[in-house]
């Protein structure tokens, strides 16, 4: 009895002593009230934080706060607009002939041999404090000749006593391009970079041939097409014309990395301590990673050497009214720290958000009804409960498309025959994505009319964007064609009522599903029913993702669903998913359906090399008509991101392409503290009730015990 009682009281004392009125604060005493700290989560640990290797949204939410490529996206403007970041200005682009002579800017792309990007970077940008840059009094790098004895007491980067910095120079950008070419770095985009950057592939081949002899210090080696022109200027020469290259310059792949970091981390004993660039980045951005414990939390702190960017002074119409310009011209960043806690499960994450311990949150399907309600016009808004808590909703259409693909080299659903085309069209009508979005996505999505999402050049608005093969325009909105029309198409294809008129056998199609567990079962059943509307029997072939991908590479699948998230906001980044030379089976490319149409391919080649304008739009319209007619995809849907934020979050305009937005966020710390205290007062009476019940039980047991003893004694 006494032990249990003492335990309960001890627990209570610990809480009361340590939690200052609120017992459930997960940040506890370490939270400094004077700091402006942003609290968020991550559910999966980022695998790589090296900008040459990293290619996932999980990693980008960290490294885009740390590294600064030459360009970035304007925080407020939509459609997305590029602007200079660590560059002084937008790059100068020169077109050259085979002899290297400059050509006029309006030279037709097929007459251009090279294009050259000349990039001037801002002077006086400094790296974050880092031991790789620490120098001794004699000027030598302090930690570049470490012995095992020197490393004996080192377990984390903060164990190094000294740090240093230096100015960012053009050579650091060039170093990063060399790092991407280095096969030891496993850069995931070497294929496309090798295609365009002059000398990139040759450099890569040279390293591969002598891999063991090459040092990680790449300064002595050079890529012919990437040259340092001065301390603050470098140039990149490309084969031919590749206008989309400008977007690459806004990706972390092209962020600067100092050679000192490579040499520092390459020393013996570093990797055994997990000290490498994958885990301990070094950048010039507004934040630096001061705690990297991906098993627990990641902490970004203000980089004391940050150059001091200012908040944008212009934005979209309505941004001023929405309060997005109230900090115009103020120096960034606002936040002192950002703490990202590992949260794998949705229930604790959601609960902590409601308790005020996370500042922003996505919405899981299990909490959707609690958070969101739709108005009579179908507009999404927060529920009364959320409104009372001061929670706001932001939405943005993601630059993503989820589609149902038909393998175009499959003898039944693929090919260019009218029979297979009609079959695909019939299926495209029958699979009701409006219903799918409503049931499985809580209404968070818009049915796709083609591969290009809205907000991207090339996609029209309203009726002009309609896919007339699947929809008709009625009363100001797109309406899916009726199932009778799909059945008629199926009849024309020779599968009347789902019977192959040539063989007399029922039509059976095969769907490659990734996973068939309880979560997927409902959506697979739904899909089966969509095909059953046409009397087509759909056989689900469930497999794991690895095997699914292998089937795609081999062209062994028939019908499948897949998705694509844009790297950059250009129609080329979606239309290339259907470009013939990118076919997955032949060239291991991203064209998963292996669709080939010479007319489409020719138009794609034209479209990708010209700037946005009426001419490009006309070509895209032609391409869209070809795609809608051939129907290699049932066009699926574009998801819509829903993000909730507390009213103490200031400047939180959603961006679906750029992740370096942390520097713009500001927090009303006092309001947050007040709300947290208000929402999280512990409910103590059950504790006392439990104690009373426990005491009563023990007393009863004791009385019973004594009574038995007495009975025995008698």
């Amino acid at each position, binding site marked *: 009895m006494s032990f249990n009682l003492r335990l309960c009281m001890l627990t209570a004392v610990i809480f009361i002593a340590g939690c200052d009125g609120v017992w459930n604060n997960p940040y506890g005493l370490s939270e400094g009230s004077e700091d402006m700290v942003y609290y968020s989560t991550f559910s999966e640990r980022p695998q790589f934080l090296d900008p040459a290797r990293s290619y996932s949204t999980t990693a980008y939410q960290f490294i885009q706060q740390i590294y600064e490529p030459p360009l970035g996206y304007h925080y407020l403007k939509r459609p997305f607009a590029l602007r200079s970041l660590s560059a002084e200005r937008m790059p100068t682009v020169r077109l050259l002939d085979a002899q290297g002579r400059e050509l006029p800017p309006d030279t037709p792309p097929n007459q251009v041999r090279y294009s050259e990007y000349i990039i001037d970077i801002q002077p006086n940008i400094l790296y974050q404090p880092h031991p790789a840059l620490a120098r001794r009094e004699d000027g030598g790098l302090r930690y570049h000749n470490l012995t095992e004895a020197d490393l004996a007491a080192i377990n984390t980067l903060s164990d190094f006593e000294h740090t240093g910095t230096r100015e960012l120079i053009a050579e650091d950008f060039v170093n990063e391009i060399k790092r991407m070419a280095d096969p030891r770095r496993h850069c995931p985009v070497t294929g496309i970079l090798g295609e365009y950057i002059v000398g990139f592939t040759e450099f890569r081949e040279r390293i591969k041939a002598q891999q063991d002899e090459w040092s990680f210090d790449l300064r002595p080696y050079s890529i012919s097409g990437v040259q340092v022109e001065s301390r603050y200027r470098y140039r990149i020469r490309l084969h031919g014309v590749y206008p989309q290259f400008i977007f690459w310059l806004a990706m972390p792949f092209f962020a600067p990395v100092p050679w000192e970091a490579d040499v520092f981390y390459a020393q013996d004993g570093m990797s055994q301590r997990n000290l490498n660039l*994958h885990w301990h980045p070094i950048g010039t951005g507004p934040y630096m990673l001061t705690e990297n414990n991906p098993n627990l939390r990641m902490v970004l702190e203000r980089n004391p050497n940050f150059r001091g960017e200012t908040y944008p002074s212009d934005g979209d119409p309505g941004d001023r009214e929405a309060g997005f310009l109230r900090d115009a011209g103020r120096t960034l960043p606002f936040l002192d720290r950002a703490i990202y806690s590992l949260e794998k499960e949705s229930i604790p994450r959601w609960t902590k958000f409601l308790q005020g311990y996370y500042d922003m949150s996505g919405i899981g399907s299990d909490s959707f009804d609690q958070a969101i309600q739709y108005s009579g016009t179908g507009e999404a808004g927060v529920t009364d409960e959320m409104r009372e808590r001061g929670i706001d909703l932001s939405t943005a259409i993601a630059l993503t498309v989820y589609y149902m693909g038909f393998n175009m080299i499959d003898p039944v659903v693929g090919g260019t025959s009218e029979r297979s085309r009609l079959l695909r069209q019939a299926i495209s009508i029958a699979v009701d994505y409006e219903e799918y979005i409503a049931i499985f996505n809580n209404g968070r999505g818009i049915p796709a009319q083609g591969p290009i999402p809205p907000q991207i050049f090339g996609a029209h608005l309203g009726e002009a964007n309609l896919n007339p093969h699947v929809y008709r325009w009625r009363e100001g909105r797109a309406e899916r064609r009726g199932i009778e029309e799909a059945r008629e198409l199926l009849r024309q294809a020779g599968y009347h009522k789902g019977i192959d008129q040539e063989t007399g056998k029922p039509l059976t199609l095969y769907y490659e599903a990734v996973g068939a567990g309880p979560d997927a079962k409902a959506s697979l059943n739904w899909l089966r029913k969509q095909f059953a509307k046409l009397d087509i029997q759909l056989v689900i072939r469930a497999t794991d993702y690895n095997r699914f991908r292998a089937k795609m590479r081999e062209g062994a699948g028939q019908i499948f669903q897949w998705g694509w998230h844009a790297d950059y906001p250009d129609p080329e980044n979606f239309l290339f998913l259907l470009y013939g030379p990118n076919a997955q089976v032949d060239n291991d490319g991203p064209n998963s359906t292996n669709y080939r149409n010479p007319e489409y391919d020719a138009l794609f080649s034209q479209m990708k090399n010209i700037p946005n304008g009426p001419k490009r739009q006309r070509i895209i319209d032609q391409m869209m008509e070809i795609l809608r007619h051939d129907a290699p995809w049932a066009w699926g849907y574009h998801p819509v991101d829903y993000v909730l934020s507390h009213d103490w979050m200031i400047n939180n305009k959603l961006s679906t392409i750029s992740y370096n937005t942390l520097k713009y966020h500001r927090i009303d710390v006092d309001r947050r503290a007040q709300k947290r205290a208000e929402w999280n007062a512990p409910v103590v009476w059950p504790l006392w009730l439990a104690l009373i019940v426990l005491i009563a039980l023990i007393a009863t047991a004791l009385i019973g015990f004594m009574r038995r003893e007495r009975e025995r004694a008698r």
Partner: protein
Amino acid sequence: MTAYIIRRALYAIPILIGVNLLTFALFFVVNSPEEVARLHLGDKQVTQEQVEAWKYERGYHLPLMYNGEAEGAEQFTETIFYTKSVRLFAFDFGNSDSGRNIGHDIRQRMWPSLALAVPSLLLGLLLNTTLALMLAFFRGSYLDVGGVVLCVALMSVSALFYIIGGQYLVGKLLQMVPISGYDTGFEALKFLVLPILISVVYGIGSGTRWYRTLFLEEISKDYVRTARAKGLSEQWVLFRHVLRNALIPILTGVVVLLPLLFMGSLITESFFAIPGLGSYTIDAIQRQDFSIVRAMVFLGTVLYILGLLLTDISYTLADPRVRLN
């Protein structure tokens, strides 16, 4: 006893090889090295050259079990199985497929696992023994019958229910502790209260029922009857005689678990975001990181074998009649 321990250690070698072989076969039946490489390299635009380079760096370019192109012993040693397995026996786990040092990670992550598992075990042991003694004392009464029914009910509920229910009740409704998370040092205490409480409550049903059975078995023995005939009080009989003798199977049952405490709890750690070895293993399985899965299975096997050995030894300490031959 030394000879016995040496003999058991030698027995462990074929067991470890067998378990390693089984893990290897199961893993690579599901995934080829090519697929693992593609998974690790990411989704977009992965070239065959990158896949080959990734495999080469991690030794996955070799044949799985038998190298037909090699000669002599190298036909077996120049394989993924041999190169990945042999150093495990020196507890050199190498790097994970994503490049992190596994030994370093294990050393870091075993502490949160222990911080959760040790108090759960000790408190559970204490509480279950107390409750079982009480039920044994009131055997045949309504309290006993009610207690057993309650134990069966507690046993019948899934662990997930306890976790989610506990988080909802204590973390969300009562707001007494953080609903999940972890921290270092004393700050960890408030994060551990709820998972420990849930672990203890979850174990009450099975633990109390088992211990009650052990106590009842002892109570019906002749020496207890003799003790009572001597006029000893029931309290004295229970605590001095029954408890001490029933503790032998209880303690030996606990000893086998001791080394496995390092391995952590797969579900609890994941739900409470505790960065222990249990969540490490789950993550590795989800990411298909063979190096970590193999290391953790190997470590688990070693610890289990160690636990069994300790159990045997503890028998000899607890019961003088037992001799290890």
